């Protein structure tokens, strides 16, 4: 769920970039040797503190969840797995508050229906 929520935010951000002048797209504009995710993170930073903060929450939650789902890549995570590490309230907050906050920010820049 956290992964899905993050990717929704990512595509709202892609929408914003495609709406900009000149239009941008991570696959096309991200410099060689730079991760697409990192490049998008820089774009989220340009949206201001609140949007950056929200995007970073969603990204880290997604990344950590995946990391814990894969059993820490064989590392000792102290028996902690994703569904234990994230409370239900965190997941609900991610989609009901954080994603909506980020979406509103994007909408305020480039309105969409």
């Amino acid at each position, binding site marked *: 769920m956290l992964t899905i929520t993050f990717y929704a935010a990512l*595509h709202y951000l892609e929408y914003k970039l495609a709406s900009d002048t000149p239009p941008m797209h991570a696959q096309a504009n991200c410099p060689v040797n730079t991760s697409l995710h990192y490049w998008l993170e820089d774009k989220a*930073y340009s949206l201001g503190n609140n949007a950056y*903060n929200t995007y970073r929450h969603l990204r880290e939650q997604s990344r950590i969840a995946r990391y814990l789902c894969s059993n820490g890549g064989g590392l000792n995570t102290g028996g902690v797995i994703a569904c234990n590490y994230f409370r239900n309230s965190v997941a609900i907050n991610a989609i009901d508050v954080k*994603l909506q906050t980020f979406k509103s920010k994007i909408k305020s820049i480039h309105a969409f229906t």
Partner: protein
Amino acid sequence: MIYRSLYSRDKTPDRNNEVLMTAWIGVADSIERDEKNKGVLLASDFIHFIDNNLVSKLEYSLDVCGHIKEVSRASSDLLFSSPSTLGVYKPSINQVLIEEGSEIVTERIELFFAQKLKICEEVEAIYSHKHLDTLIFTILLNTTEYDEDLMEQFFEVEYRIRNEFIGIPLRFNYLPILYKDKEKLVNPDYKLIFDKNAISKPSFSSSQAQRTISSEFETISFIQGLDAYNNLLRSPSLSGI
């Protein structure tokens, strides 16, 4: 896996971009709706935004985990290859300047970051390494659940550092893991810039940043010791001495 191919009859860049903007919203909305529908994503949900607006050879696959994967990068490059609309990436002036004096700036950032985060009990260790011109921090957290307030603080610090050092590519990765595993987790080439368990040990190694942080810890310990000594002198039990 739901798979959808999109083909365009209209090849103009402006038209393609307009369709693409619609597509991104469609994808994002579909993912969001998918989550609210508890994992059920209908093809009709995904297709509503393409209808008659067909994008030039842009192909995506959407797997059930919600990952969007572009399966035809080459075709996407075609769509975005118009230099008149997209421009070409060039390093900013700031990035060039930083390359000239990278060592000093890098250590300033490391020190700044370590000073901000070391006050958090959950931060076990902070490592940094450079990849090309990017400074990447790896932060090991001794946490057993995601603490939104704590992470909020970290992201605030990130934002401040980005503001302070505009133009420097900075990355931050947070890993919740037991301390004893850090050797397996962290590449030996990474530079340790903060280690909570090493505060009492004045034996930091190599770099200037480590020495600076180390000496700061020693100063803090000294001041704390001095305060404790002064308090002891002021205590009633010793006042008669």
